[in-house]
């Protein structure tokens, strides 16, 4: 199968997706809206709709910033049936509401807590304080919970221009690090390698491997970052953010 285009049978021109095979056991689905926000919304609405359909043979449904990866077992679900289900999902997808709420994330900016704040300021040609101000003033939209281990990947146009990745990725980034890259941001849930720029650290824990649910934030949540002092950081209990919501 080469790339195909699927459309909503009801004929709405806006609901069209480009589907490409990702090997023989996965499809990569790109909504074709011009608007980035609509592509994100469509990818997540389609994912919710497919999850609800509970198809035998589907092994993973992963919507991200503007695409959706569907993994399946080709012995139990053939690609044509999956595409049919995807077309059906296109007609119902728009009706799924995404819960939106405001979640505040406290963090210490700069210094050892955000070693790349200086390079981000340098790249933008503004002061470190201006970077902090712009980062705090932005309403970041939680796009999805991704890698590693449920990291809340968020989006927002805080700086007007994309932030480049590090030329040499770090081998180990501490949990709680708040990082930016492109027009995106993330919060590390576990120590992990990565090439995004670290501008601060939150004392809160973003995942909860000892309980359920594993993460508390859901796509569509709005994240607002609130600066705190180093003293406040040390006084804050490192609790799972789900306990504060």
């Amino acid at each position, binding site marked *: *199968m080469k790339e195909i285009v699927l459309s909503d049978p009801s004929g709405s021109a806006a609901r069209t997706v480009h589907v*490409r*095979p*990702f*090997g*023989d*056991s*996965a499809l*990569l689905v790109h909504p074709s809206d011009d608007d980035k926000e609509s592509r994100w919304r469509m990818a997540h609405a389609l*994912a919710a709709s497919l*999850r609800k359909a509970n198809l035998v043979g589907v*092994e*993973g*449904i*992963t*919507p*991200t*910033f*503007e*695409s*959706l*990866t569907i*993994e399946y077992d*080709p*012995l139990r679900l053939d*690609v044509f049936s999956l595409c049919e289900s995807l077309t059906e999902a296109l007609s119902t997808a728009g009706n799924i509401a995404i819960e939106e709420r405001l979640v505040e994330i406290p963090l210490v900016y700069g210094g050892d807590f955000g070693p790349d704040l200086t390079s981000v300021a340098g790249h933008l040609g503004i002061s470190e304080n201006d970077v902090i101000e712009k980062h705090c003033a932005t309403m970041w939209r939680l796009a*999805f*919970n*991704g*890698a*590693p*281990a*449920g*990291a809340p*990947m968020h989006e927002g146009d805080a700086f007007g221009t994309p932030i480049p*990745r590090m030329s040499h*990725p770090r081998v180990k980034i501490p949990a709680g690090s708040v990082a930016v890259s*492109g027009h*995106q941001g993330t919060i590390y*849930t*576990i120590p*992990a390698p990565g*090439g995004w720029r670290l501008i601060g650290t939150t004392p809160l824990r973003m*995942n909860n*491997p000892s309980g*359920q*649910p*594993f*993460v508390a934030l859901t*796509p569509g949540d709005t994240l607002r970052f609130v600066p705190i002092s180093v003293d406040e950081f040390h006084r804050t209990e490192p609790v799972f953010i789900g306990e504060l919501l």
Partner: protein
Amino acid sequence: MTSVEINIREAGVSVVTDLGRYGFTDQGLQVNGAADQFSAMAANILVGNGEGSPVIELTSILPFEMCTPEPVLFSITGSTGDITIDGINFTSRTPIVTWPDACIRIEPAQAGLRGYIAIHGRIEGDEYMGSCAYDSLINRGCKLADDQRLRVDGHCVQAPPHMTPCFPIRAPRELYSRHTPLGIMPGPELHEYPGFFDNISSQMRTVGAQSDHAGIRLEGTDAPRSRTSEILSRGVPVGAIEVPPAGGMIALLRGRPLTAGYPVPAVVARGWHSQLAQIRPGDTVSLIPTTPAQSICVAQRRRDELDILRKKCSTAFAASRLFSPRTTSMI
């Protein structure tokens, strides 16, 4: 329900796992589970368990030893060296009934990387979100240590009436070698790697030391990319061959990060996923272009082998009245 405590005398590098933690990609949880799914399923079938029951996954570069205080029905599949029980040689890929205080030892293998032990009943694991799949990132799952006791529920078996510990049943033979050909198919960024598939099957790639259950590193000629644009993070399937900025390529296994923004010029086809899981650092691989039809044929043949194996085992276990009436024959 009856239970027994197996004594893990020498754990090497081994974990309790199952076929994976499915259904939580929206929470950022990767599937994990037995890297070589075929061998894990075959091991369970050989002891009358459901295919998704917990198994012990061991790294076959180190020896493994466990003792069973009571008779258990167990099997070993995947990559293993010599197998002995109290010094007596046994073969892999067959159901074996042990005797009281039997000591099972598995020597390191010459090739392949992962062996699987199934025991009739249910091996106790660290269950989280409906699965005991080992997840090193979130520190869930049961990593075995020397002298650890491991509980198995519903293990009870009767000595087979033929009074030998073995059955004339064997799972299909797996041939492991230090060189593995892998079937590959185009990935979403193939067009950004001009000529990637030309002559690819004649290139030999070495597997680097930085390989684990998340992926294996393929060293060798770097693939030049015609674009430099960054890719937004997206879900990546098992088998995806990523090209990270540091060069080389990484073929992803089941413990992979769920999402990533690296270009993917090719994907290891499903028919070769079990072989992919058996490649050890220092091995060589060649990447051979294949088609979905070929891949599905291979996967279907493996599936058929498992179905035939289950039928043979059911017949043999029923005829031998191996399972005590107090336990269910198929868990």
